[in-house]
């Protein structure tokens, strides 16, 4: 059974939580007791309808303010797919949580209020979805009921959005526009008949048929070693296996490999998954690999195939999204985590901060603040084996960790 990961984004009050509530409701995913709790909570708030958004705003502070602060993960299934929705906040100050939600998504849903059209947050969210190269984008023009289901209004928004698409550096994204009304359920799970001029699929119909092309499998083979398994038991006395998850590509028994950074070569003897022996391990599978030779490899090292060796980098150019209250300044040292591997890294240069609405690169900035996106150069204390994000996203991203308070302060993509 396939798992489809979706991230929603939009501005405040454009109805994200209601849309998700509606998806759950229309797929019979809300049990009766939760539904009753929703009725009661809506009534307490003095509403004359059942506020489906109360389903996802899980924190007291969110319910008090009626806004989403942090990512909520929400699940529903249809007979064919399991869906994981990361419901991310619309407020500008919680952009980092939006990036958190979007980083694992295959589909990005951007909501637009039909009355307001494209707003600043739409630019920001589209920019992030493009930066992360999320393959599918669905623009949901919501609250169509409040503009009399006007086709002209919808077309205008589609036209406006086209400018964003023209400016984007990521051209392989599949983009779909759907006019919806979350409140009335129009075009969410199915058509209710309120919009007869729209001939495309409802949102859920679209999600059901999004094809997975398993891009990670076509990318070069990368296997970071999480740990070395050496049981030293009577039954497995000489066993020495490398445990990890295939980042991208695939490995088969007999493949010639190189261990990075040592450069030592060997061949794959076995690929094991608990008591099963596999011939091939594909992207995202957790396995244990044993080799023909006793080579020196440990946690943080990476196995690659001899036909496509990852480039060794000690100087890294990257787009980063800054996620901390304390600002980034050139010259400061952080911990860089690439996959599971951590090295010290120094910010050599801040090239520019991008104005995400105008796409202008502001070059005279000396620092980056919370939610800023820009380009920097880093120098690392030890080499990392990252690919360019655009060539292999699974092995092309990293995070920066503050050495003193241990917080994750930035996410970056190698360019």
């Amino acid at each position, binding site marked *: 059974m396939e798992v489809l990961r979706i991230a929603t984004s939009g501005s405040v009050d454009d109805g994200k939580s209601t849309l998700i509530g509606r998806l759950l409701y229309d797929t019979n995913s809300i049990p009766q007791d939760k539904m009753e709790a929703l009725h009661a909570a809506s009534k307490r708030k003095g509403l004359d309808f059942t506020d489906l958004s109360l389903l996802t705003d899980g924190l007291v502070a969110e319910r008090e303010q009626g806004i989403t602060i942090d990512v909520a993960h929400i*699940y529903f299934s249809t007979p064919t797919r399991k869906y994981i929705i990361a419901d991310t906040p619309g407020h500008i100050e919680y952009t980092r949580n939006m990036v958190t939600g979007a980083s694992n998504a295959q589909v990005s849903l951007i909501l637009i209020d039909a009355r307001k059209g494209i707003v600043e947050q739409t630019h920001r969210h589209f920019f992030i979805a493009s930066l992360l190269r999320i393959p599918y984008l669905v623009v949901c023009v919501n609250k169509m009921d409040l503009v009399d289901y006007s086709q002209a209004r919808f077309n205008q928004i589609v036209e406006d959005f086209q400018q964003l698409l023209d400016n984007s550096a990521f051209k392989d994204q599949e983009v779909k526009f759907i006019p919806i009304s979350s409140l009335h359920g129009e075009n969410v799970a199915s058509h209710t008949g309120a919009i007869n001029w729209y001939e495309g699929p409802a949102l859920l119909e679209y999600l059901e048929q999004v094809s997975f092309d398993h891009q990670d499998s076509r990318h070069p083979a990368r296997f970071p070693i999480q740990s070395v398994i050496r049981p030293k038991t009577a039954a497995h006395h000489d066993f020495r296996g490398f445990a990890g998850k295939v980042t991208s590509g695939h490995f088969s028994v007999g493949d010639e490999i190189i261990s990075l950074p040592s450069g030592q070569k060997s061949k794959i003897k076995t690929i*094991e998954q608990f008591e099963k022996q596999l011939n091939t391990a594909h992207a995202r599978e*957790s396995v244990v690999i044993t080799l023909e030779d006793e080579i020196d490899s440990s946690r943080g090292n990476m196995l690659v195939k001899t036909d496509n060796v990852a480039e060794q980098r000690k100087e890294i150019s990257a787009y980063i999204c800054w996620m901390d209250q304390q600002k980034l300044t050139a010259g400061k040292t952080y911990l860089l985590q690439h996959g599971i591997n951590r090295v010290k890294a120094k910010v050599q240069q801040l090239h520019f901060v991008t104005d995400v609405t105008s796409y202008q690169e502001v070059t005279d900035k000396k620092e980056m603040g919370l939610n800023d996106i820009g380009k920097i150069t880093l120098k690392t204390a030890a080499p990392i084996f990252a690919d360019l994000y655009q060539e292999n996203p699974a092995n092309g991203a990293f995070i920066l960790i503050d050495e003193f308070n241990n917080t994750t302060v930035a996410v970056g993509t190698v360019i």
Partner: protein
Amino acid sequence: MTNKINWEFPQALEDEAIYILRETAAQFEKPVLLFSGGKDSITLVRLAQKAFYPGKVPFALLHVDTGHNFPETIQFRDWLVNSLGLDLIVRNVQDSIDQGKVQEETGKYASRNALQTVTLLDAIEEGKFDACIGGARRDEEKARAKERIFSVRDEFGQWNAKMQRPELFDMLNGKINIGENVRVFPISNWTELDVWNYIRREKLEIPSIYFAHEREIIERDGLYWPYSPYLNTTDDEVPYRQKVRFRTVGDMTCTAAVISEADKLEDIIAEIMEAKISERGARIDDKRSEAAMEKRKQAGYF
């Protein structure tokens, strides 16, 4: 749209959980697996076995025993630990009561569920555990839906929802200061149905109370409560025998039963698909207020 039963377990979830468990073992000095004897922690044990095979599971199980557990669960716990050769640490809420650190609740709704937190935090401090692996799932409850996979808690075990670290791609940051600890949730992205389909696929043993059986119950507030010496009943609450099963395994004073004939896994799964009540709808402790779980989590509950 009606839900057809899907027996298929999404394999991606197992691969993700194993990756998380391996990161936990690698990034922390002394992790421990919180084990209640329920289906989620049984699933975790299986995943841990797989993650380190053919090596042994590199951490112990910690059971915070309220003293009000179903006897069937304790029996099962001991059987599982013995048959898999695992290390088990048990800490008792009764000890915290005897030490005067917590006070037993009184009245009709008295439960030891909330008291567990203090015993858990003491056990963490005493054992110097820097990571506690738990079987919480984001689909259980809306405050849980907000939780990270590596969830940092301060030295009082407190969860601060507004200060959560961003968690990007699959990169987990377990760096903490001394005294802090991380709650690790490898099956965050699983649903109740995923857990059942996994138990079915892996042919895992589970405590007998999950299957329909006859036992003494009382009715209160529209729920079926298991009758036990720990339950404070009023004169009009007369126990009677009924065929029931449990959807979650908690304390006998806060876990309600469902009337059921399901005595095999397939029937349980079918029943869950049909159920009109959510899993935690039968957890009496969650009904105390809309924010019951969030408040417990802030206080250090797992």
